[in-house]
Structure formats: structure tokens, C-alpha cells
């Protein structure tokens, strides 16, 4: 395995090892580029993964302090990961392509008051080939001749309801979970607990795919428990390296030819903002003032329904089930953009009483808890609109153990978000009632798992942070390599698009390096 010197300024430094950073690292390493990947979390193995939701939450989650405001939980505004593999250890596996019109949100939806809409600088056609590569890499079911997963009970309820509702586009999803053995990883055993990590590795995660493959090339060094504090630059405004704290809190500087930021949409802007200097007083790559802004955690919500018979929704692949009809663009519904309905990871028995109706108690609620076996559920995920007021800033009060100001995350719903959620709740309630549901609980978002848009792509330097390759407008050897670069959130789960963008970015970086441009 490779080991690079701290003063080796020929390496590409990647910050983060998840869907963006892990993929980019492997792609570059395969092409002969030397990579140092700095990951804040520890490196686990499959043996560390179990089916205890609380235990895995503690092992995987980003638990350093954060401040949430607006509609967010003040203590846990987002539920994302601090571990090698990042949020690909915890994700549910849903791998959907964005729809062509979603890359042209401003053109398609028009100006919406209060929203900071823009078109992506790239089109669906620009990304199509990379979607192909990403799906093949991840083994996405329902693509490239890969069989879909069988539907579990919760899916079958969703499917029967979809038929009653007249929906046409429903199936067990496009999942980066093996339906057959593939790429040295086994087929799904319908274990459940996908979001606690897949104990057998049937679900794609950079932890046991991209990262070991990158290490085999001899071009890739992973440094776990390495928390990057700031990015340094020279007098010409080029990035020169990064300062990070190791497991013991000791600071090091790793020199770099190129720096790629992939710390998820809260940590990435936090790092750029914390890298402010006399040359970049508002933070690195922030001449537009857009770093940290347009934070989009997706429009989400959940529905729990008590059905006439047993469902046992903890059995089987959690999110292998989707209805896509409502993801179309159709503003006659009273809102722009669309949403998907997906089978709910219900978080088991401690989860259902805690989440169906937070804070509820008494005899009626106890009776609904007793009906646990009969509960079905779905998760709503839709396009939320970028708003400048929704943003990540540096807390002026709270610092982490390294003395770095923590992220303050603010999010409040746009009227369009509220209208979409109401519509989704209504449709979902009707769906379950069409099958005789005794009661339906609709609920507000969980702590957000999709975090997007805080360093967005834009065609001009004044309206966003980076170009269509994720290269920042202000610093040519600094790249955004995660979901932060999303111009808009689209209705679909983001991971596949993050991976496709990372593959495309790797090709671009390799090309620009050999052309001597960076």
C-alpha cells in the first residue's frame, strides 16, 4: 500500500471517502494519479456491522456538535456519517438518475419567488455516459441487465396501493444492492437494517469496493481519523495543501498539487469558510458569496399506516420499493418539481413508537403501537427549492475539539416545499386507505440524510462556486467532489449522481493534469 510524504506536492488530496471522495480517489488511482485521501472517521470492517440500530448509529454517525435552526433539529440537524466510506455505509441504496428537465430547473419551472433557482451548467446528455459507468460500477438493479430485487411485504403493500391509485411506474427500485453475486460481493439476503450498514456487503459502499480497489493500485493512501481544518494557498491563489488533525489531535500539513473537497454538504462549505485568508476574506472559492448557501436537504416526510393484516415491515431490503409517477413535472398540482414515494426504513420497534407520532402517549397510541406487525410505511423524497437563506455558516459560539468553529445549519421550508409535502401526504394516505388502513400517521422529516447544494455548480462565477466539472471558479486546482456541487436537488436520491459526477471529474482532472493546466 502506498505511503506518501507530507511534503510530496505532486499528490491529489481528497477530503472525504464517501460516494464522492471514495469514487474519485479510486478513479484517479486507476489512472495512475497519486492520491492521499483524508477521512475524519475511523475505518470499520464488515465484522463491525451488526443489526443493532443504536449501536451502529454510534459507530457511524457524525456526532461532533452542530447547530441547527429553522425547521431543523437544533442538536442533530443532519444524520450523516463520520467513518471510512462516509454515508455510503449508511445509505439505503436507492440509485436513480435525475430526469433531463431537472438539470434545467430555472428554464423548466421559471422564476419562483424566494427561490434561488438556476440551471445546471451541464445537461443530462453530458452526464448520461457517466450514469452508465456509475450504474455498472455499483451494480444497480434494473439497469445493464441486472435483475431487480424481489419485493418484500412493505413493497407489496405499496404496489397494491399504487394499482388502486392508478399509478403506472412502480417497482422494487434501482438499487445498488446485489440481486445476484457480483463484483465479489454476495446477493442480498433480505436482512433489513440497510441503514445500519450491510453486514454482508451486498450493498455498494466505497468502504469495501472503491477504497480497497484504489489501495491495490499502489497509488492511493487512505488516512483515517484525519480531520481537515483548513486549505492553504499561495500568493497566486492556488491551493498548496491542507492542514489536518490526526487521531491524537496533532496537526499536520499535507502538500498537494490539487485539492478535492468531499466532506458532504455541511462539512465541505464549513471547510471552505474556515479557510478564509487575506486574499479570500469570505472563505476560499467564495467570491460569489454562495459558499454555504442554497442548502437543500430534499423535501422529505414519512407515512406510517396501520393495515388490516400483518406486514412485518422490518423484514427485507428497506428501500427496495418506489412509485415514480409523482416525480414528473406538472405544476397543475400546485407546486413545481416532483417527488418519489419509497418504502420506508422504519427503524424497528424502538423506532416506530418514537417516530410515528413523536411525543404521543395514552391508550389510543398504545393500541396503535400494539399493531406494530400491521404497520406499512413510505418515505417521501422530493425536490426542494434552493433558497439563499438556507445555509451553512460557521458558528460564532461553538467550536469542536480541534478549535474549529462548528457548522450552523439553517433550513426553512419554501411554500413550494410545504405544498409538495401536503400533496404527498394526501396521496400516500389515500393509497393506504384504498387497502383498508385503519389509521395513517403522516410525519415531518427525520434529521436529513440527503444534504446538497452548498457549493453549487454554475455557468458564471457570480452565481455559484464551481463549474460543470466541480472545479471552483476562483481556485483552478480546487474541486468540489460531493453533493455540495448540486445546482438543484432534483427529486431523486443523490448518491448515483454524486458517483457519476465523480467519475466524470476524475477524467477531467486527469486530462487537465496531462495538459499541464493544473
Amino acid at each position, binding site marked *: 500500500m502506498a505511503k506518501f510524504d507530507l511534503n510530496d506536492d505532486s499528490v491529489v488530496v481528497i477530503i472525504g471517502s464517501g460516494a464522492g471522495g471514495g469514487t474519485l480517489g479510486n478513479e484517479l488511482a486507476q489512472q495512475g494519479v497519486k492520491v492521499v485521501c483524508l477521512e475524519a472517521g475511523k475505518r470499520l470492517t464488515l465484522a463491525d456491522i451488526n*443489526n443493532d*440500530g443504536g449501536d451502529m448509529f454510534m459507530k457511524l454517525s457524525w456526532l461532533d456538535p452542530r447547530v441547527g435552526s429553522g425547521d431543523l433539529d437544533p442538536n442533530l440537524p443532519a444524520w450523516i456519517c463520520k467513518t471510512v466510506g462516509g454515508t455510503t455505509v449508511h445509505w439505503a441504496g436507492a440509485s436513480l438518475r435525475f430526469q433531463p428537465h431537472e438539470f434545467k430547473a430555472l428554464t423548466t419551472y421559471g422564476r419562483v419567488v424566494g427561490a434561488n433557482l438556476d440551471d445546471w451548467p451541464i445537461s443530462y446528455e453530458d452526464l448520461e455516459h457517466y450514469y452508465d459507468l456509475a450504474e455498472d460500477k455499483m451494480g444497480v438493479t434494473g439497469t445493464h441487465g441486472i435483475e431487480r430485487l424481489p419485493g418484500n411485504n412493505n413493497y407489496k403493500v405499496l404496489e397494491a396501493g399504487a394499482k388502486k391509485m392508478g399509478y403506472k411506474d412502480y417497482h422494487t427500485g434501482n438499487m445498488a444492492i446485489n440481486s445476484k453475486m457480483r463484483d465479489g460481493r454476495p446477493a442480498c439476503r433480505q436482512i433489513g437494517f440497510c441503514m445500519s450498514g450491510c*453486514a454482508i456487503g451486498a450493498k455498494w459502499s466505497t468502504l469495501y469496493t472503491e477504497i480497497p480497489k484504489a489501495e491495490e493500485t499502489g497509488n492511493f493512501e487512505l488516512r483515517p481519523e484525519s480531520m481537515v481544518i483548513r486549505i492553504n494557498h499561495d500568493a497566486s491563489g492556488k491551493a498548496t495543501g491542507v492542514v489536518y488533525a490526526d487521531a491524537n489531535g496533532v496537526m499536520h500539513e499535507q502538500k498537494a498539487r490539487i485539492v478535492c473537497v468531499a466532506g458532504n454538504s455541511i462539512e465541505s462549505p464549513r471547510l471552505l469558510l474556515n479557510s478564509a485568508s487575506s486574499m479570500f476574506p469570505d472563505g476560499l472559492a467564495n467570491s460569489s458569496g454562495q459558499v454555504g448557501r442554497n442548502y437543500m436537504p430534499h423535501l422529505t416526510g414519512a407515512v406510517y399506516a396501520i393495515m388490516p393484516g400483518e406486514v412485518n415491515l422490518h423484514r427485507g431490503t428497506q428501500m427496495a420499493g418506489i412509485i415514480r409517477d409523482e416525480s414528473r413535472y406538472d405544476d397543475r398540482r400546485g407546486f413545481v418539481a416532483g417527488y418519489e414515494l419509497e418504502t420506508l426504513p422504519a427503524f*424497528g420497534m424502538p423506532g416506530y*413508537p*418514537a417516530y410515528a407520532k413523536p411525543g404521543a402517549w*395514552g391508550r389510543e397510541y398504545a393500541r396503535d403501537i400494539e399493531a406494530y406487525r400491521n404497520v406499512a410505511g413510505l418515505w417521501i423524497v422530493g425536490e426542494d427549492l434552493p433558497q439563499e437563506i438556507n445555509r451553512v455558516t460557521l458558528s460564532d459560539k461553538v467550536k469542536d475539539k480541534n478549535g474549529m468553529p462548528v457548522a450552523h445549519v439553517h433550513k426553512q421550508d419554501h411554500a413550494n416545499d410545504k405544498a409538495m409535502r401536503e400533496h404527498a401526504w394526501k396521496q400516500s394516505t389515500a393509497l393506504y386507505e384504498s387497502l383498508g388502513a385503519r389509521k395513517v400517521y403522516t410525519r415531518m422529516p427525520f434529521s436529513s440524510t440527503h444534504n446538497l447544494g452548498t457549493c453549487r455548480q454554475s455557468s458564471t462565477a457570480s452565481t455559484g462556486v464551481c463549474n460543470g466539472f466541480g472545479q471552483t471558479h476562483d481556485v483552478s486546482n480546487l474541486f468540489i467532489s460531493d453533493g455540495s456541487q448540486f445546482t438543484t436537488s432534483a427529486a431523486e436520491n443523490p448518491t448515483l449522481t454524486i458517483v457519476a459526477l465523480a467519475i466524470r471529474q476524475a477524467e477531467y482532472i486527469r486530462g487537465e493534469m496531462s495538459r499541464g493546466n493544473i
Partner: protein
Amino acid sequence: MLLEELELRRRAFLKIAGGSAFMSLAAGTGLSAFSANAWSAHHLKAISEDQGHALLALARTLFPHDFLADSYYGNIVNAIDAKADGSADTLKLVTDGAARLERLARANFDGQGFAQLPEKSRVRILKTIEKSPFFSFMYGETLGGLYGNPEIWKIFGFEGSSFEKGGYLERGFDDINWLPKD
């Protein structure tokens, strides 16, 4: 990491709902020594027997499952007692809260104690203290202690860890039998 910090973060996991529920999964461990049947307040260390009975009545009022023996709720009281034994703040929260329950009960229901009241009266009292830190604490402890208990999972139908059994592929992941045939 301090134990208190760990505990806070465990609670955060169950707080991802964004609701007011502070729960402790930790309370779900070590409960299997007690199964169905009666519960005794004799062995309580930090709180009195009367306080123990009041807390048990409170827990049962929050989530009344008539088929569950007192021991399931008593285990939660035991866990609270252990916490109160190790923390003066918790002890004060719990004893002040239990005293308040008693005061409200005796003042409004002919001098009867909280634990002796019918459920309807207990609900009326709890509604008046729903916003208090004591109620939030008891809510979290009860939710976590009851539904985080693997014995309770069996009764309610949550089947727990499955990977060591090979998942549900051959164990009913798609065995639903009541849906319309169309």
C-alpha cells in the same frame, strides 16, 4: 468519551424524529432478569417505595398495555432508580416530580395517591405536567425502556437482529397474504 456524552448521543439517535422524545436505548439492556409477573419496590435504592409505585403508574399511563405485567414497567423504574442513585440531579428531578404527582392527586381526587387513581384521573394529571422536564424525562425513559426491551420486541412482533439467521430471504420477507388479488 464521558458516559454522560455517550448517553446524550444515544438519545440523539432516537431524537432524529425531531420530536420531544428523549429516549434511552441503554435502558433496554439488562432487563431480561425480570420477566412477566409482579414487581416489587423493596429493593429500590435512591427513591422510596411510594415514589417507585407512582413512577410505575406514570409509565403505565403513558403506554398502557393491559396484557403486560407490572414487571415490564417496574424494570423502567429500576433503571430510573439506578440513574438517580448515581446522579443528584436525576434524583432531584425524579423525587420532585413524584412529589408533584402526589400533590396533584391528593388535592384533586379526595386525598388518594397517584398510583391508586383510575387511569382517567392519572391522564388528567399528566396532561397538566406535559411540558415539564420531569415529564420529558419520564417519557423518554418509558419509551426507551419499554420498546427498547428485546422481551417486549418478541411480544409486539419486532424480530430484532436477523443477519445471523441469514436474513429473511427464506423467513417470510414476502409472506403477506391478505392483499387484494386483482
